[in-house]
């Protein structure tokens, strides 16, 4: 049974991007043709504070291998304070995931401004590489959801 090993591992990666900074940063990466692997799929949210820990767990449950959340730099939030709340929430959530034995490289928060197309692309490249090094997310995947 060497099906897994023969096939190149293509991770599933969900990126939550806030509409004002990070999504625009991703747009800038696009218009600057700064490539990053196609494994990353972006979900647009109004603000990083809209990202519910349930969304992240849900992604893992459904087979995501990595989840990254991007928001405006602290202090630059379009809604002034959203990313400060997000920062606390994600810190606690990541710590909890680490506590239950999930490899902590599977989750990441990065602050990316609308001007940081380069940073966005770099971050995604790094993150995908990290997920590659961790391999498939076998610990958290809900077996029923494999198709």
């Amino acid at each position, binding site marked *: 049974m060497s099906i897994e090993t023969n096939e190149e591992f293509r991770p599933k990666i969900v990126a939550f991007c806030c509409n004002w900074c990070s999504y625009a940063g991703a747009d800038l990466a696009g218009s600057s*043709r*700064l490539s990053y692997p196609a494994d990353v799929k972006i979900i647009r949210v109004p603000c990083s504070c809209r*990202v519910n820990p349930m969304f992240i767990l849900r992604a893992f449950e459904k087979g995501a291998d990595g989840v990254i959340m991007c928001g405006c730099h602290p202090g630059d939030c379009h809604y002034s304070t959203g990313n400060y709340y997000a920062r606390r*929430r994600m810190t606690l959530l990541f710590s909890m995931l680490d506590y239950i034995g999930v490899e902590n490289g599977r989750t990441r928060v990065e602050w990316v401004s609308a001007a940081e197309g380069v940073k966005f692309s770099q971050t995604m490249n790094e993150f995908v590489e990290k997920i590659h090094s961790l391999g498939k997310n076998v610990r958290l995947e809900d077996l029923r959801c494999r198709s």
Partner: protein
Amino acid sequence: MQRIGVFVCHCGSNIAATVDVKKVVELAAKEPGVVHAEDYQYMCSEAGQAKIQEAIREKNLTGVVVCSCSPRMHEATFRKAAERAGLNPYMVEIANIREHCSWIHKDMEEATKKAVILARAAIAKVNLNAPLQPGESRVTKRALIIGGGIAGIQTALDIADAGYEVDIVEKTPSIGGRMSQLDKTFPTLDCSACILTPKMVEAAAHEKINIYTYSEVEHVSGFVGDFTVDIRKKARSVNMDKCTGCGVCQEKCPSKKIPNEFNRGLNNRTAIYTPFAQAIPNVPVIDRENCIKFKTGKCGVCSKVCQAGAIDYDQQDEIVTQKYGAIVVATGFDTIKLDKYDEYAYSQSKDVITSLELERIMNAAGPTKGHLERLSDGKAPKELVFIQCVGSRCSDDRGKPYCSKICCMYTAKHAMLIRDKYPDTNVTVFYIDVRTPGKNFDEFYRRAVEQYGVNYIKGQVGKVIPQPDGSLLVQGSDLIDNKQILKKADMVVLATAIEPNPDVRKIATMLTASIDTNNFLTEAHAKLRPVESPTAGIFLSGVCQGPKDIPETVAQAGAAAVKAIGLLAKDKLTTNPCTAKSDELLCNGCSTCANVCPYGAISYEDKEVNDHGIRETRRVAVVNTALCQGCGACTVACPSGAMDLQGFSNRQIIAEVDAICR
């Protein structure tokens, strides 16, 4: 079940070159809820929009997914198109298969796969969309202009002339900006002060314009139509109402050794000063860091000599809080620092100067009273060399990657003026390209060459070597003659690159306006919305958006004014309907959501509810949709999930997550 139409855009070849558009159509058509799928060259074109509208009508679509460019680009376009066909605009979602897919991936198969997944996520979301109705918010009929240079002044005048109140906030003690430092202006050579001063006076005298000089924007909150801004009026230490502007205090001030910023530090000023003679307001400020009274407690000369009794050492900074409907950024530029360009010997020789310094030297009110002379020994230079593109067009980390745009023209101006006034002085210009697009610009440059005998050499200067005799040896190349040139010069003028005012980053952050890697403010659309920031209600005027000369700045200032007036003319704005909404049957009334709301949009009411037959009075959260901006902080804080965000609901986001992970 929704009836969804999927529209896949080729964007010419922008998408179609990397994404198999037909395949996306084919696979999207199989998704649940999809009853129609098609592709088209340009979905955003009128014909493309017509296709969407036709499908909405003919297939009774209840939802639309457009697979195209970023929603930041055309979401509004497609929503309006759908609305015209009778569909609620919020039933339209965009799958970004250009910026997030075709433009960053090269492999067709891979990009197509990703595009299909992005389309699926958008379809899954639309399946859970609900029609939304926008609310309304009021518009404060007052504009704030940040920066009192020619851009800010022009925008202020135009807005004020339309009948709206305008406040200008200027950091320095006087309005006027960079233009007030210039001597003559190209291509007509009229004196800068002669055309600027009347505008400054007009702004100061305008009944609708209120000028805060020596002031800075401290804090900005609110949103389009309803910004609240704190302005710090720095303590001037001079009572503006009492001061007559007689200038005696400046004459008598014993602290005279402070580098004069207005003259680029080429001479000194006093501790109590007005930056220049035509300053508006003509009221000095005390530079407390350099004032003997503030440093030692002794002195007080200015107070003694002031007959009007205007000196007030106890004056404190004052915070003015004001509401605005629109904000215009006009923060301008500065020249870059030359510390990374040792080869031009700027820091080694006083006779190597920047063009802006030359501008002050040429000016009758400048440090040399308008006489062209070497700053080292006061002698008139006989050989003058101009070096173009110093720090502009650099792809290394020493300079700026962009063209500063104004240097070619002002150098031609300087060269011409010097040749005119000092015919014995030879002028050589080392250039890479001479860029003169603009009305009468090339003619102007040619006049410098043909009529005034300015020697233009195509080639860059490699280094400037100060000589023991006080002259400068300029080593440059002449690419036409294919020669290396060694030229003795008495003075070298560097066409130094310009960069946005360094404060702009702080201001952009306060305004949540985006800024590019060079610190220029980003426009909402590079071509079609060049004077608006992507952040609603923020407009861009002058060089803060990109390098510009005076006529362009004035034109853009007017355009920004028109956009601001267009906003101020409205009595009400329709608000984003993607606001938070509390399900009163689930709400615990625990106040957790109100604790995280940055807008104070959540209040609590004791409300009679009917929870599946149980009638009781409950404390429940109520969202004020005029205040709610839709950030969603409350939705995550809410433990029961009663609070949800319309347009980005929990179920919608989860559906997207599921679609991506499927």
